[in-house]
């Protein structure tokens, strides 16, 4: 295709795009490659992936990326505007806002990952059980799901944190318990669609237990839909967590939680606008990244539900 083909890359490409894969591995890799091509064709989705990638990289390598400590005050350099020394300026305690943003990425990632790890498996479990066993199990579980689905997420998170006390773990817990219902719904829908297929009946005749069937066959089928939904939800989770932080209910000072930074920057909004504005931009960019990524994933993995 190109003028001077690199020998090894064209061999790899031929192997990936072959119409007659020789091994299971080749088929899986080929499918993944095809999906990647479709995904990468969407510029916005690629942008989303890059943003999320940068978030992860910044969070992991925070000590290397940040220029100074995010928590130690430096009262001689309070409220400096963005400039050469302090790229995003300093806050009311003289801390470098850029470094605080960088370390704040860790907190954001922490919240998002924890919520996903808690909510998605719970949703999967509830949904697949409801779909697979049917009958009263289905009715009870779905009633439960509908009840939780109808709860206002932020308000309930507020109430939980009010009772448990502020803190990042409590905020995560509060958000997670209202986030699982959509996954349960998706998992149940997927489960219902394959419950009566012949190959499931065949495995059951061979003596597979329900657990094995659900775990080995039903769950893998739901995975792509759930992944899409989790990614799309992440923006909302970030915004809710930031909202809790803004109210002082998330990570406590001096931790550089972005929402809390906006709250403390509020007093200085008129003259030192950068304290409150820049963390908001960070939240916005990260949310946008997850939204773009989720949209792109959905177009590739589940095209019929997209636009």
């Amino acid at each position, binding site marked *: 295709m190109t003028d001077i083909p690199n020998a090894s890359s064209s061999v790899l490409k031929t192997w990936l795009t072959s119409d007659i894969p020789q091994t299971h591995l080749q088929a899986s890799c080929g499918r993944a490659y095809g999906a990647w091509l479709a995904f990468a064709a969407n510029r916005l989705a690629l942008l989303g992936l890059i943003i999320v990638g940068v978030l992860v990289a910044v969070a992991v390598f925070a000590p290397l990326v940040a220029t100074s400590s995010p928590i130690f005050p430096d009262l001689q350099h309070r409220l400096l505007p963005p400039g050469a020394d302090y790229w995003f300026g300093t806050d009311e305690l003289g801390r470098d806002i850029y470094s605080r943003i960088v370390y704040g990425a860790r907190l954001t990632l922490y919240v998002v990952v924890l919520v996903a790890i808690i909510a998605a498996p719970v949703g999967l479990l509830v949904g697949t059980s409801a779909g697979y066993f049917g009958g009263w199990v289905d009715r009870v579980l779905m*009633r*439960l799901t*509908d*009840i*939780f*689905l*109808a*709860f*206002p*997420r*932020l*308000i*309930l998170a*507020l*109430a*939980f*944190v*009010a*009772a*448990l006390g502020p803190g990042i773990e409590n905020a995560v817990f509060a958000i997670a318990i209202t986030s699982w219902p959509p996954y349960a719904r998706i998992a149940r829908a997927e489960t219902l669609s394959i419950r009566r297929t012949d190959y499931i009946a065949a495995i059951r005749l061979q003596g597979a237990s329900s657990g094995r069937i659900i775990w080995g066959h039903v769950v893998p089928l739901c995975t792509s839909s759930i992944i899409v939904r989790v990614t799309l939800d992440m*923006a909302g989770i970030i*915004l809710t967590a*930031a*909202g809790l932080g*803004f*109210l*002082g*209910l998330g990570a406590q000072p001096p931790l550089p939680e972005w*929402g809390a930074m*906006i709250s403390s920057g*509020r007093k200085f*909004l*008129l003259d030192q*606008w950068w304290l*409150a*504005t820049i*963390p*908001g931009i960070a*939240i*916005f960019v990260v*949310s*946008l990244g997850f*939204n*773009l990524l989720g*949209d792109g994933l959905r177009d590739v993995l589940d095209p019929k539900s997209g*636009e």
Partner: protein
Amino acid sequence: MTSGSHNAAAGRTGWTRRRLPRPIGVVLGAVVTLGLTFLGLLTVTFFIGRVVPIDPVLAAVGDHASATAYERARVELGLNLPLWQQFLVYVKNAAVGDFGESVLTANPVFEDIKRVFPATLELATLGTILGVLFGIPMGVIAAVHKGRWPDQLVRVFGLLGYSVPVFWLGLIGLLLFYAKLDWVAGPGRLDIAYDYIVDPVTGMLLIDSLIAGEMEVFANACSHIALPAIILGYFSLAYISRMTRSFMLEQLGQEYITTARVKGLSETRVIWGHALGNVMVPLVTVIALSYASLLEGSVLTEIVFAWPGLGQYITNSLLQADMNAVLGGTVVVGTVFISLNLLSDLLYRLLDPRAK
């Protein structure tokens, strides 16, 4: 659709078997679901209020209560009773609107909420109206011009609305349009000078001031509500335009659209008459859900704009550890939220002629 059996019966008379219309059954089912969900909500709030805190009495009366007040509350809460009995008492109270007394104001929580709720209602309603007024046309235009620049523009505009934190946008809006440009009034519902001029009839200033004929007050109230309503409206618009676009695209691919064109109808008629008519049914559901999410979103907006509504009430109570108030507010918001969710379901089933 089971075509086989339908046609067999239909062949003789030409009519499909019509199910008797039972909107009553649908409504009853919704009421039962509402009751169950409400019960679930109460279970959660009961759990938060009694089970989670180490000392629920302290949570209810606050740090500064005297020993006698503490004892009284302890008896009132009935903590000597087994947990399930406490729950029954709680449910009974909640059903009549007794959420206990607020630590801060010493009023019954329900009275407090009645006082502050209209402000939130006003804001959420105006926001939803804006969202519908602009969101639906934007969604239609985006669908009709799919792939071209109007579509991209609408999608990006909506996407931004999904990604930006509402409280931050409020702050930036205040900074820009109030502090720097002086286009709108600042936080609060009214300038202090205009307080108490208008009698609260509905609790919604815009309506009350019009009823009283106080045009200056009305203008001032508009100036204050403009920015928060526009911001909430933006969020509503983002959601509504996205869903409208999605529904429109689905409808525009249907055969009856071709039929309409074959009849020689103008494209305007085809889109706004035929396609939109079919879109309105699921769209009504979307609008109800959007209203619900605005009620929730107003919590943070009210903080930023010092808007004396339910959201501010809950958060202030939160920061003062006034559990009764927090939980009472939660139940009220939760109930409205749940009701709107169910209403949207109900509306869908009642409006679609095929679902009767």
